[in-house]
């Protein structure tokens, strides 16, 4: 017997391992597909600098078939009828984003791991995997092509009908049309079929859209579900967070492979210039000081570095204390104002405290934590905190219990902040980074990095202190209200009984006395 060795393409790899990309079962698959494409749509709008208008429609592929089937199955038990929802759906997503340049359309949608997101700046997606993975899943479950319409707003609109050649990881273009863009439309429409289970996925999809609307308060999101129900999330502002800038790698965050790649492409002939031009926030002075610690000459040609020198360089980069922290222009936090707007819009709380922590880094990756606490209003009351987790403006819905934020909330002494579990309280944590420390590929929960954890704790604590002040004040107001109600209950009785007792007939006016009690209340407020 001999083993056969073969190479597989990236598309093939993900086809065989679709679980890790979140396409485990029909319910999860339809959720993941919708989510990946919504995120792409929002990223495209961010890139174009326009407030997003995202339209999502999910429909039964063969509506008649579904209807007749559902009538037939009316008498059957619930369990049985539930399974028929696993069927073929059609998903259509439209955005008003930057559009994809015509020559990139086939690859962007028909090739796994092709994309514009491999740079060091904050985006929702990271791998250029999600969108194509959705098509790939659609293709393998329905064997139908995907339709893409896109325009960058110039004179033409391009429409493509493509499939993925899984074994070769290449797009197959089945049809291509070029239309005149008379109305100057810009954006992208994708339309494809996939197998899924909407009924099971529905709660997650709706929660996902609600939380997305919360963290993207400048977006209009429209969703029409297969039953024809319309869900609409309107923007509350047109103000968008400032877009992230692309950045160079920080010395703390690089590895040997990165250095080798840089060495291959660098036009610089000495180590000082190499350090200054390829790394984030490294100037001449820092470069010189650093190189002294490495025993590599300043004038050395980087292309002539020996492998063990490169290893030493990386090793020393991690130990050198003189590098400046990465700056955060590559990050795009939402900002306290926008986060507040989003929370007010979706949760209509009685009280809200929002905190943006100063930028920090872990392993050379810059990050910013934004934390918020909302109380009352439409915040769900469920005998425990509602935790909303976001990473680079995408909601994280699965594996809440494993997330670092959940552990933090559970370990905090909330009584110090006058908080009891029966209160309607939502805690929001938004982590922005060029590299989110996910624990798994599925973008579900954030790992326990001490630097990140510390910032989240600080953020939540600061918001909690503000909540405490609010609750204390509310308690005070409540006490004063009760106090006033005691006076309003008894003073009229005293007046009435005294009048009867004295035998007089003229009614006493006690409003002045009550005003005095009230005045006191305002003074102490």
């Amino acid at each position, binding site marked *: 017997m001999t083993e056969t060795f073969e190479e597989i393409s990236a598309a093939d790899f993900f086809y065989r391992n679709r679980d890790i990309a979140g396409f485990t079962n029909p319910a999860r698959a339809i959720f993941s597909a919708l989510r990946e494409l919504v995120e792409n749509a929002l990223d495209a709008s961010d890139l174009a600098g326009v407030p997003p208008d995202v339209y999502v429609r999910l429909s039964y592929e063969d509506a008649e078939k579904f209807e007749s089937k559902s009538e037939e199955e009316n008498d059957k038990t619930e369990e049985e009828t539930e399974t028929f929802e696993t069927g073929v759906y059609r998903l259509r997503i439209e955005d008003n984003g930057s559009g994809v340049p015509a020559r990139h359309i086939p690859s962007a949608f028909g090739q796994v791991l092709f994309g514009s997101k491999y740079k060091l700046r904050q985006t929702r997606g990271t791998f250029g995997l999600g969108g194509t993975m959705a098509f790939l899943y659609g293709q393998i479950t329905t064997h139908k092509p995907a339709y893409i319409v896109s325009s960058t707003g110039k004179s033409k609109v391009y429409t493509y009908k493509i499939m993925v050649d899984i074994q070769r990881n290449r797009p197959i273009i089945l049809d291509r049309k070029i239309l005149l863009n008379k109305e100057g439309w810009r954006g992208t429409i994708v339309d494809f079929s996939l197998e899924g289970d909407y009924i099971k996925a529905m709660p997650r999809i709706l929660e996902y859209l609600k939380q997305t609307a919360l963290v993207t308060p400048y977006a209009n999101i429209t969703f029409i579900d297969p039953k024809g129900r319309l869900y609409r999330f309107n923007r509350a502002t047109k103000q968008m967070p400032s877009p992230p800038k692309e950045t160079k790698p920080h010395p703390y965050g690089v590895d040997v492979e990165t250095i080798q790649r840089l060495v291959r492409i660098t036009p610089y002939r000495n180590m000082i210039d190499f350090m200054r031009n390829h790394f984030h926030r490294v100037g001449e002075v820092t470069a010189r000081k650093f190189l002294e610690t490495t025993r590599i000459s300043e004038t050395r040609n980087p292309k002539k570095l020996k492998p063990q020198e490169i290893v030493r360089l990386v090793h020393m980069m991690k130990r050198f204390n003189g590098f400046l922290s990465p700056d955060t222009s590559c990050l795009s936090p939402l900002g306290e104002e926008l986060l507040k707007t989003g929370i007010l819009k979706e949760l209509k709380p009685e009280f809200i405290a929002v905190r943006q922590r100063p930028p920090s880094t872990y392993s050379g990756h810059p990050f910013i934590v934004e934390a918020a606490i909302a109380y009352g209003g439409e915040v769900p009351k469920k005998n425990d905190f509602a935790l909303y987790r976001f990473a680079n403006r995408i909601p994280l819905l699965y594996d809440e219990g494993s997330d670092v934020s959940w552990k933090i909330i559970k370990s905090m002494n909330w009584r110090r902040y006058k908080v009891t579990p029966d209160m309607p309280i939502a805690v929001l944590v938004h982590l922005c980074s060029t590299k989110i420390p996910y624990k798994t590929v599925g973008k579900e929960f954030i790992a326990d990095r001490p630097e990140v954890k510390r910032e989240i704790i600080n953020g939540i604590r600061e918001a909690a202190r503000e909540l405490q002040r609010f609750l204390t004040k509310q308690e005070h107001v409540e006490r004063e209200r009760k106090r006033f109600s005691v006076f309003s209950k008894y003073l009229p009785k005293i007046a009435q009984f005294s*009048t009867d*007792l004295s*035998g007089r007939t003229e009614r006493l006016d006690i409003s002045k006395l009550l005003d005095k009690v009230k005045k006191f209340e305002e003074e102490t407020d």
Partner: protein
Amino acid sequence: MKKKRISSATERKKEVITNLTNFGNTLYDQMEKGVFPWIKMPSRSTENIYYNTELRQYVLGDKSVKRSSRNIRHIRPFTQLVWTAFFANELTQQRKTSTLRDVYYSAQAYDMKFKDQAESNNIITDLETVAKFAREDFNVFPEERSAIFGDLTIEYSVPGYEGKRLNLASHPDGVMIGPALTSSEFVKTSADKVIAIEKGGLFTRFIEEQVHNKYNSLLILTAGQAPRATRHFIHRLNKELQLPVFILTDGDPWGMHIAMVIISGSANAAHLRELTTPDAKWSGVWASDIVDYKLPSDPLTEIDVKRLYELQKDPRYEGDLWQREIKTFFKHRKKAEQEAFSRYGLTYIVDEYLPTKLEES
């Protein structure tokens, strides 16, 4: 301390009503001026209760408490007090009587619920302190009843009986000292003394044996500790008719104290006057009588002895007679009931013991 000398029950009623009306006027005026109504009244805390040797009863000292409706903790009891005054006024005006329990329930009709009977009783005591009248004067009576027998003619003032007269010797079981009797006027009497008796058995024996005739006396059954209405009634007999009062109780610390409360009152009623009869005499059964008459007796219990120690230090017991009898109790450690005289025959107590004691005291 304002001293009142009220000769008739009707006048007293008038004064009660005036007092309540004044209370209402005070509060009304305060509110009219835009002031949170308040009152000042003597403190009833134990450190403000003193024994007044001149009055021979407990009185309240100079400490006073201010209750203001401005204070969130005071306003509820303050309102309850005003309501109680209002309710007492209604009762008095309409000449209806009520019990402590009634008051507790009546409050609910005015959305003035008392937490419990104790709270309601306490507010009534507050009103007594403020108005300086006993609750019986507001027509609020306790449930206990005692009785009187003898040649005393009274005239009722209660609704439906106004002007009707009754001689208290007309019923051989005696006449209950209830609201109607308490508020009646004294018309005439041939008696020249009052004998108060602790127990019903002896009260009946005295009537059967014509003690009222033989000794020219009015007989009162206190039925244990004398109710306040009865104490006030005895006070009136003593003050209005100048009748000396003799008290017969069991020969033990408890009987002795029944006599003392009629004479000098209790600390609980330190805010009230005219419940005491300082000149009344405790005629027996003394500890020395147990010895002198060789009465069948029981040994004093531990509780009896403990009580005796308390009484020995009590300022009301400063007199020679009291100290002597307490010492005798301690010496012989014996107690005897009034009925113990029956060992010498049923009439012995009336024929032999009583005349001796009346002379003695």
